[in-house]
């Protein structure tokens, strides 16, 4: 395929392919420890647990930054 034939489609993106960080290794090690060698697929329960643990509101700079406004919203 020629370079100019390649069309970019808005709204779709590839998953991040950045190299693993030490923190991500810790997550994988923990997952292997609790799941044994079952190589568990990501389930809805897993997604919900991860989002509750690491999610941040859109536009926030850090997962651990909670502004007064968002803190109030959560209360």
């Amino acid at each position, binding site marked *: 395929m020629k370079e100019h034939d390649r069309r970019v489609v808005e709204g779709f993106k590839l998953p991040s392919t950045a190299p693993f*960080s030490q*923190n991500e290794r810790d997550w994988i090690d*923990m997952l292997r420890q609790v*799941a044994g060698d079952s190589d568990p697929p990501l389930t809805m329960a897993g997604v919900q647990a991860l989002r509750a643990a690491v999610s*941040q509101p859109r536009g926030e700079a850090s*997962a651990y930054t909670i502004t007064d406004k968002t803190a109030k919203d959560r209360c």
Partner: protein
Amino acid sequence: MAKKPYENTRLAKFLDARLLELKHKKTQAEIAEEAGFVHQNMITMIKQGATKLPIDRVPALAKALESDPALLLRLALEQSEGSTAAAAIYEIIGQPISKNEMAWIVEIREASGDTDPRLTSRAGAAIRGIFGK
């Protein structure tokens, strides 16, 4: 009694479990054939720990077992080289990550907005809760 040097390896236990799970779908002989083993009893020998899984059979056996090749490769390296040597290999070329594990990482990146979140004790507890641990 015949020696079974690989009896207690994680690979032998994993194979035993997968064969049980696939029992209703295919026989050990079919799995052996799919994995390219000339002798059908190789699966039994690996399962019992009488012999180790040759590394070159990992991709085909993973396919036959409907398992992730990255997981089977880790187990095979640990079985044939030992965990210390396997760790040295991973240090140089990196550790094989399964597609399922990659899905967990992608979700962590998505949910955190790529902020590389630490594994906190609260997060660990939430994940353990999913697996009833």
